[in-house]
């Protein structure tokens, strides 16, 4: 038997409370990171898959001119095992008997849609069907408004250019419907093979070809790499993130999850650092003794390092073993919530951040104090010596900060997020230094009071170093947990508030001035609410600073240069927009215009540049006075260009736009509306809103689940810290009992002491959390900051209660065991 190995052996370690705490912390760390990773990965995949339906594919290749997509590209994609689909979009006139109508045609092949489904009906009054195919050759599907406008029934013929197609269905919803206010013409869907026969597409006509691609991510990625060098400027490779509406939502979702993940990491390493330090402290006597027996520093290092590696391996394994069922559980909950079948798979390579966390936790946080054990003076066998660890502690802190920074960087790759969190930690350290000094000063001067209060205050002062370090850890824990609670409650709420259940989900466009009153009456009769009317003036952007726009624009192929834009007039600032440059119109301003940021960037224009528009026969010019960022996922009426009242476009012929909410069960009202106002376009965006709300619900659920785990980790940190001082407190308690203190007094004093620590840590934690939230909200999620008073006020009390309970719990052995036994045990 090797006795030396048994001195610091794994089974031996497991009997040490500090090792148990450290192992638990490490398991929690690995499990939390791995769970978040596995679950976030799963969520990403399901979110992406469901969001990809908005492209009707995983990727789209869009031609920005009327050049078709080369067949060789499709062939290459098919060779690589990707599914492909061809789609052509163009505008044309269709007719039935003597009635003509301008329509937006979408010609699709048999593969369409590669992702998502088409909702259609055999007739206007039939039930809705969900299909995975569009119309076949020779067939055409129309939107309900067009059916009525042209007075068509299934089986009738529709003239499209030079050919005639049979109406076989009513298209209710296409997966890639998009949200474009410029799509004013009603939809016609036909088969791509019939396009040539229509003879509609002539040189110079405005046609858009879209290639659809679907397959696994790796193949798509490889194909993109192959394709990229061949793509001329007029082709655009699009994934769902580049879609205006869902892209932003998905980015936000990812931001929330990563935030949760990084907070978990921070909490975990705090727990590990605390436990490791306590373990090292408890080992000093043993090391001193071994040194008297002649053990050298390097052998001591080897002895402990081998243990550490054991712990790391076991904690990582156990953590991963816990994480997989946990992630599966979360995934199945989400699946149930979303009423979707569960496809859960774990890609073990995705779990490397958890393994990295274990390694970092081990070597950057657990190892330094343990490594310093070899410097324990052998003289310690005679008496405990004060050790001056300030320099070492500073080194540890520096290393910890650098490592945390690197780790967060790896996880989040978002400098703003990392800086916000680290900034908050720094703010916490500074406020702790100030508050700590103040506390010591205050405790010394506090009128001691009586009984339990006196005992509590004396204990706080006597253990001021422990008090301060406990307070720091608690405050840090509370800060991290509170940040997530606040971010979750405030950012998610803000996001949800943007899209409440009754958010406008239908738009009405092309309301002629003379129809406004009748539309108003329709709304009143049917008890519907609508948003204000926005005047819409259709105009083309033709000049920049007096030069032809198509020649001087930075991106000469911008679609917005090729079509008419919706210009509007408004004096009130759109609430979800943000001015990024210049000034919004002052009251009474009649000159200038406000332009959307991405359009300004694409055109290469700045404040003061003059834009010229052609509206009908008129030409108007105005200088840019402000540039706005627009939140396209807000689903509110948003405009590229806004003029002030009485400005350049005032008095030009206009129509109006409005939006309203219509519940699913009231959708039949639309039929009445369309019949009554055949010239007004109805844009249904309820399915987009529904999908975004679904994403919000999914993310909310995920963040909540992560929150539960983080709160568990936070409680583990607190237990670790409280139990770190357990033996000393038990000894004191036993002594006080031996000296005749009453149990009640002891209990009260401990409860008061911990409640005070908890209360102060709660105040510091919640205030610094607000700083972090402010930074995150301001910078990352573009929300507005406001104080979270209920949390700010209640959290210090909650943390006081939790710590008082923990304090009471650790006192239990002191109260139940005879002081004699306890003192002997603690010898």
């Amino acid at each position, binding site marked *: 038997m*090797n006795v030396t190995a048994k*001195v610091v052996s794994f089974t031996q370690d497991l009997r040490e409370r500090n090792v148990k705490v450290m192992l638990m912390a490490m398991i929690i760390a690995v499990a939390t990171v791995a769970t978040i990773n596995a679950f976030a990965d799963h969520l990403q995949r399901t979110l992406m898959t469901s969001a990809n339906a908005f492209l009707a594919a995983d990727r789209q290749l869009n031609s920005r001119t009327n050049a078709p997509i080369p067949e060789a590209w499709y062939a290459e994609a098919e060779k690589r095992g990707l599914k492909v689909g061809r789609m052509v979009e163009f505008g044309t006139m269709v007719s039935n008997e003597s009635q003509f109508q301008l329509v937006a045609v979408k010609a699709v092949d048999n593969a369409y849609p590669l992702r998502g489904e088409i909702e259609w009906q055999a007739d206007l009054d039939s039930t809705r069907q969900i299909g995975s195919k569009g119309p076949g050759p020779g067939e055409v599907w129309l939107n309900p408004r067009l059916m009525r406008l042209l007075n068509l029934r299934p089986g009738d013929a529709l003239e499209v250019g030079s050919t005639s197609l049979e109406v076989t269905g009513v298209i209710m919803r296409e997966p890639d419907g998009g949200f474009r206010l410029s799509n004013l013409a009603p939809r016609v869907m036909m088969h791509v093979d019939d396009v040539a026969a229509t003879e509609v597409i002539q040189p110079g006509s405005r046609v858009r070809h879209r290639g659809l691609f679907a397959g696994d991510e790796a193949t798509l990625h490889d194909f993109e790499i192959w394709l990229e060098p061949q793509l001329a400027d007029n082709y655009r490779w699009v994934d769902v993130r580049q879609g205006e509406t869902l892209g932003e939502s998905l980015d936000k979702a990812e931001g929330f999850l990563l935030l949760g993940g990084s907070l978990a990491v921070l909490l975990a390493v705090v727990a590990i650092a605390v436990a490791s330090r306590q373990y090292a402290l408890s080992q000093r006597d043993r090391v001193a003794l*071994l040194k008297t027996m002649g053990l050298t520093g390097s052998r001591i290092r080897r002895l402990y390092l081998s243990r550490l590696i054991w712990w790391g391996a076991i904690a990582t394994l156990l953590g991963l073993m816990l994480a997989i069922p946990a992630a599966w559980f979360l995934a199945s909950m989400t699946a149930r919530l979303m009423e979707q079948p569960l496809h859960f798979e774990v890609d073990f390579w995705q779990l490397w951040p958890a393994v990295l966390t274990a390694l970092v936790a081990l070597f950057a946080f657990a190892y330094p104090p343990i490594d310093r054990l070899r410097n324990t003076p052998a003289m310690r*066998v005679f008496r405990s010596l004060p050790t001056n660890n300030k320099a070492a502690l500073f080194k540890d802190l520096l290393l910890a900060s650098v490592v945390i920074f690197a780790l967060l960087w790896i996880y989040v790759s978002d400098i703003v997020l990392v800086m916000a969190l680290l900034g908050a930690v720094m703010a916490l350290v500074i406020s702790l230094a100030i508050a700590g000094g103040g506390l010591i000063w205050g405790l010394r001067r506090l009128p001691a009071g009586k009984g339990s209060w006196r005992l509590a205050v004396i204990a706080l002062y006597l253990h001021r170093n422990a008090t301060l370090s406990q307070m720091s850890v608690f405050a840090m824990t509370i800060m991290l947990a509170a940040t997530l609670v606040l971010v979750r409650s405030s950012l998610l709420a803000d996001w949800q508030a943007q899209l409440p259940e009754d958010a406008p989900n239908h738009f009405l466009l092309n309301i002629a001035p003379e129809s406004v009153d009748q539309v108003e009456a329709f709304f009143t009769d049917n008890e519907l609410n609508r948003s204000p009317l926005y005047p819409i003036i259709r105009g083309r952007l033709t000049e920049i600073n007096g030069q032809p726009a198509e020649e001087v624009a930075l991106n000469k192929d911008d679609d917005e240069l090729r079509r008419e834009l919706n210009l509007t007039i408004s004096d009130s600032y759109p609430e979800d927009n943000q001015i990024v440059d210049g000034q919004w119109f002052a009251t009474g301003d009649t000159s200038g215009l406000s332009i959307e940021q991405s359009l300004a960037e694409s055109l290469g224009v700045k404040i003061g540049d003059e834009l010229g528009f052609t509206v009908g026969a008129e030409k108007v010019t105005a200088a840019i006075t402000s540039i706005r960022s627009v939140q396209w996922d807000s689903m509110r009426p948003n405009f590229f260009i806004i003029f002030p009242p009485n400005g350049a476009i005032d008095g030009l012929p206009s129509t109006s736009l409005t939006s309203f909410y219509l519940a699913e069960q009231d959708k039949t009202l639309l039929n009445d509306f369309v019949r009554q106002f055949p010239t007004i376009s109805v844009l249904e965006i309820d399915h987009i809103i529904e999908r975004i709300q679904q994403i919000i619900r999914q993310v909310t659920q995920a963040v909540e689940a992560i929150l539960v785990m983080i709160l568990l980790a936070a409680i583990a940190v607190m237990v670790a810290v409280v139990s770190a001082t357990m033996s000393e407190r038990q000894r004191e308690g036993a002594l006080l009992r031996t000296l005749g203190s009453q149990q009640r007094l002891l209990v009260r004093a401990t409860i008061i002491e911990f409640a005070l620590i908890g209360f102060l840590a709660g105040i510091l934690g919640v205030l610094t959390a607000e700083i972090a939230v402010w930074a995150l909200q301001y910078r990352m999620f573009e929300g507005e900051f406001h104080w979270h008073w209920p949390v700010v006020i209640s959290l210090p009390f909650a943390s006081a209660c939790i710590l008082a309970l923990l304090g009471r719990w650790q006192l239990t052995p002191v109260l139940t065991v005879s002081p004699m036994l306890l003192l002997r045990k603690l010898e």
Partner: protein
Amino acid sequence: MSTDRQRNPLNDFMIKVENLSHSVDLGTDKLSILQQVNLDIRKGESAAIVGRSGSGKTTLLGLLAGLDIPSSGTVSMNGHLISALSEDERASLRSQRVGFVFQSFQLLPALTAIENVMLPIELAGLSDAKSKAEALLQRVGLGDRMQHTPRQLSGGEQQRVAIARAFAVEPQVLFADEPTGNLDTRTGEAITELLMTLNREQGTTLVMVTHDQQLAERCQRHFVIEAGVLHEKTDNTTEVLSA
């Protein structure tokens, strides 16, 4: 030159201290603990250092054993100038030649009695750890308690295990810090007897710190330390050993 002296085979001193002073840094101030101590202890001798609490006797013991190095002056052990050795070199020296007995026994609670005794034998890289440890535990009268952990032993029994452990590597010199300090009189006497007997049998040099006069008088040499200054007590006189 000093190397020649420390390796001198004619040198029959086990411990030789010259002009040793020791102080600790208290930030701005220095607290002087030992002043100009000179001391020779021959091989096989037993020496007691007596003094009040805080007189510096334990610090001196630590310095003699090479657990720390003095602020100034030299300490030699069996001809090796230990005050000039690195910590690891001193550790190696200790593993071969030095045994300790402590006031608070310092047994590892997780190890059984026999394992505690085996530990220094293994650390020194010697063979037959188990049989040696068994023999020693038999010798200190704990043949039937070998598998007990320290918690299952009384104070006197724990100190017997500690003594067995101290003699396990057949040390040339044994340092004892208040070996009976935590024991009642009768147990203390029994422990003293055991320590002295083993010391005699193994021809070990014994350096003991105590404030127990009776125990001190059983040693061949008897030193008194007062406020950091060492004197040797001979019959009725006290020789000042600190200059």
